[in-house]
């Protein structure tokens, strides 16, 4: 019967979570700085230039982690949405609504960095390639969740509406992905093909993985701060918020 262990219940209470986040934040920041620092130095300076793409390939160190994050955050958001709908945990609502703008930013970053990469490599900023198109639609899905949340007044009703939309969107993402792939393969001959990725060398791979992990911890860092803000705003007037504000002042 007891699907959620007791410690989770306690952690889900706003004041406990606020304190927990406060303790976790510096660690996340530290880990992010180390991972991103190593990834950037390793990727931008130490790794050799690609034999085909030259120095231009280094965009991969921003582009690929951002694209990964765009999908990861959507899944994460859908998970929070399911928790919101089933258990109505306030914290999950905050996580869900805080995910949307961060996810949209990563998606936009993936799209923009991809366009900048596409110009020198493919000769065009944009092509209606299956992956590009599904990423663009993913951005629209994120913006829809954000727009819905902004439009609704009551935060709890807004969060549950967003949760429904996120779950429906999550079901839809694979359908969109495969339909776009089908559309593209039917529609367009190989005028601009994706270059064959050479199996990547370790000196290029490690910085990439480090960047990906660093992006994830950075996401955790931003998410926790956003959730903290959301909790403070929602619980304003509660004694613990006053206490937290006083503690922050010191």
């Amino acid at each position, binding site marked *: 019967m007891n699907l959620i262990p007791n410690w989770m219940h306690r952690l889900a209470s706003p004041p406990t979570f606020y304190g927990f986040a406060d303790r976790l934040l510096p660690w996340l920041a530290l880990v992010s700085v180390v991972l991103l620092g190593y990834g950037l130095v390793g990727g931008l300076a130490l790794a050799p230039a690609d034999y085909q793409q030259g120095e231009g390939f280094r965009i991969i160190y921003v582009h690929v982690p951002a694209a990964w994050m765009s999908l990861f955050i959507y899944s994460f958001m859908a998970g929070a949405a399911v928790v919101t709908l089933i258990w109505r945990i306030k914290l999950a609502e905050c996580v869900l609504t805080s995910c949307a703008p961060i996810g949209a930013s990563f998606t936009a970053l993936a799209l923009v960095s991809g366009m900048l990469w596409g110009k020198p490599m493919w000769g065009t900023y944009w092509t209606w390639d299956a992956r590009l198109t599904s990423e663009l639609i993913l951005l629209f899905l994120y913006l829809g969740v954000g727009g*819905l949340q902004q439009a609704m007044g009551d935060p709890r009703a807004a969060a549950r509406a967003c949760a*429904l939309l996120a779950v429906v969107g999550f079901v839809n993402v694979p359908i*969109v992905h495969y*339909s776009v792939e089908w*559309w593209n393969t039917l529609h367009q001959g190989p005028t601009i093909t994706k270059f064959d990725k050479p199996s990547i060398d370790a000196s290029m791979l490690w910085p990439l993985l480090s960047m990906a992990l660093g992006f994830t911890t950075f996401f955790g860092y931003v998410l926790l701060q956003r959730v903290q803000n959301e909790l403070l705003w929602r619980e304003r007037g509660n004694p613990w918020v006053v206490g937290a504000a006083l503690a922050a002042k010191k």
Partner: protein
Amino acid sequence: MEAFVAVLARELRLAARRRAEWALPLVFYAVVATLFALGASPNAPWLKVAGPSILWVGALLAALLSLERLFRGDYEDGTLEQLFVSPQPVSLLVAGKLLAQWLVIGLPLTLMAPLLGVGFGMGAEVIGVLILSLLLGMPALVLTAGFASALVVGLPRTGVLLPVLVLPLVCPVVIFGAGAVRAAESGAPADAPLYFLGAILVLCVCGVPLAAAAALKNALD
């Protein structure tokens, strides 16, 4: 089942009394298609190529604009609350409303499309596929838009929010719908995209009434 039929009959009776509700989307659809033709140079060859896309998106927008108020009237006059206090499952009643919406708005647009298709130089066979694709795709659109309008039912003004919510969700429907017509135009068999449309429709029929009922419940809480 009786409750389902009762909701359906009520919606149809209301629509019969307000003719503008189903007639105006048709006019909108025709005007949009005409504007596309006017935007091109007269009888431009690309118009024939873009025909499936224009006809599909036009039908989609026409349906969307009229679906914004799908639950609004019922929300304002309390009918929605009555649905919730009734002993029947709300998703069933919502399904009745959505079916009525398809009959009132989706079906006329589907029947209108062949007329416009002639204007875009489609042959008889292509028009057959166009009708089939809209028959399968339009209900899926109406269902998805119904879910979105249930989400925003409590808001005073939704404006462009509803299309922003719906359009990314219905990308696959447009891809397969217009794709089927394009396949027919190029002489290829169109059954694969039509099957996909059918699959999407089945998924929508099963899932959307539940999701829409949950969204309405959220708005009433």
